[in-house]
């Protein structure tokens, strides 16, 4: 299983596990993101900055630290 950090741009992904802290999980869930959400990585970060994923028509920037705690699997 890989984390969001290891993924290629423009690939559809499914979240299988989030191991982050309470605060960031809550924030993610409020944006609709949680286990089983289907997301697409659209921008990998410059200079260890955040990634951008697209989810349900929204683009969300996620810091590297949090991205490392989001386990995903690729959808084909």
């Amino acid at each position, binding site marked *: 299983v890989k984390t969001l950090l290891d993924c290629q741009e423009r690939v559809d992904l499914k979240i299988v*596990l989030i191991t982050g*802290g*309470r*605060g*960031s*999980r*809550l*924030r*993610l*869930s*409020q*944006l*609709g993101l*949680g*286990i089983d959400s289907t997301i697409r990585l659209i*921008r990998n*970060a*410059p*200079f*260890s*900055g*955040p990634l*951008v994923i697209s989810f*349900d*028509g*929204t*683009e*969300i*920037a*996620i*810091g*590297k*630290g*949090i*991205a490392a705690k989001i386990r995903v699997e690729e959808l084909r």
Partner: protein
Amino acid sequence: MKIAMVGQPNSGKSTIFNAVAGYKSISSNFPGTTVRYAESTVRLNGLVSDLVDFPGCYSLSPSNEVSLEVRDQLIATGFDVIIDVVDASKLGRGLPLTMELMELNIPMVLCLNMMDDARQKGMSFDINSLANMLGIPVLPTIASRDIGVKRVFAQVQDASNHNNHVTKSRLRYPEDVEEMIGDLTQAVNDERTLTVSVPPRFLAIKLLEDDKYFVQNIQQSNSGALIKKARQLQHTLGVSGREPPETALAMERNSLATGICHKVTTIGSPRKDWREGLDDLLMHRAWGYIFMLLILAGMFYGVFAIGVTIETPLLEGFTRIEGYLGDTMGNKGILFVLAKNALYGISGGVAIVLPYLVPFLVVLTILEDIGYLPRVAYLLDSLMHRVGLHGCAIVPILLGYGCSVPAVMATRILPTQRDRTIAAVLATLVPCSARSVVLYGLVAYFLGASAALFIYILNIIVVVLTGKMLSSLMPEVSPGMIMEVPRYQLPTVQTILHKLWFRLREFVVIAWPLLILGSIVLGIVEFLNWDAPVNGMLSPLTMVLGLPAAVGITLIFGVLRKELVLVMLIQALGTQDVLSVLTPGQVMVFAVFVTFYVPCVATIAILRNELGARATTVVVGITLLLATGLALLTRLACAILW
């Protein structure tokens, strides 16, 4: 009637509010712009109502101070109706909040806003069946073009009369979850000693979510049995999903919302437009930074070019009037002093401040409303982390270039007190539009644009270093960034003008009269030679900085309003040709000092409010030291270089 406007960030609450209440709440394409409530009394069909524009919150589970406050207000103030504003193009994400709000048992109207955006994305909705599923009226709007807003408010009255959905909330969690909620609601009902003023079912849900505020509240009123029961149920909840209790119910709401969304939405093919691919450039790992620098530099030089073009002929005109006054009234009498100073006050506003302030605010508004600022936040996130701050701390710092007061308030979006404190300090260090006017009108005008640009860059370096220092003094790992990147929007000319006036009004109505009055007062003080003691008191400072003693008093005025510094300087020096009295080096020293020293009274007040008196005193002290130190360095550098 009391009406609350609630919704997720950037769903257009403020735009709707402004459409009915006149421009009273700053709207922009930047999630989290409104952190303070705007309130207005409006007449709806002859009925006087109180309308409250709440700051955007994603959910009623408090993840930061803003959403906590929204919840407290909603519970404490008996609202008659809630207008829930949802971005239609993100319906699936907006509905979970709708579901939470419905549990408050207050009549609701759902406003499906930004229909143009949704259409552009190829989405269309079966509004009737959505209204049916939710059991509340649903109204489509395009608030930015004032389409459908009137109908929303017509419906509001209806809703308050009929108390529509309250008795028949049709949205249900899955059976097993409903059972748990039912159990816990029963337990809440049985508990007689409870002092929480929310509907039992709402409380039950929040307890299941392990909401620490309600849990604490209940523990205080000493009903351990209730908490114990909630904890037990949470375990079962946790087993059925892989989510912890606080997000398990949120995810249930999300999936329920997604289900509804699928049923009522038809997705066609999205129309391509100018937004397509723009972020590939503006958020690109290399080009993004280059464009950012180009845009910011373009903004700087553009504003300066416009300002100079307007300032120069206006100042010449005013100098001519001054000469005429001197010829007719004689150069000595008190009458001439009064007339001359009133003229300085007027010309300071028209010829010096407004030529820069207006284009500066227009450009800032455009960048804000197009939605560029979140991109800047994205690009600078790793820098912010290197400084030791939360990525979103860039938001208040960017807003600081407009005005320190809303910038300090915007720190509320940050999750920890430590991040809020540091961001507030940094946001006050950034030159606000008033200080920018000083940089443009004094430094750029007399010494050239690059000299002013130098101070901006010096400021950025100081901000970064200060941030680094403060964050290592208060070490703590900042949680990473989770930020919505909004779609680009083209602002309408009307919105830009409204917003411009909203921001200018303070200058025109308060600062400018103060400018004229201050100028006259300073004239009289000088005429009577009373300025000597004040300047004498400040002379240790002015002497150290190598400035004429006469500028001392202008610094006092600057604490009232930063723009005053520039006009009062001209006043105190007795000429509009600053370089005939000050050397270029002295101008630089003065400008550097003014950029960093003590925040203005309005900012001090808001800092006191947000950080407390002690921290504010520290901020004032630090900025004074910082300003003095940097001004000294500038003096040294100028002595060597010039």
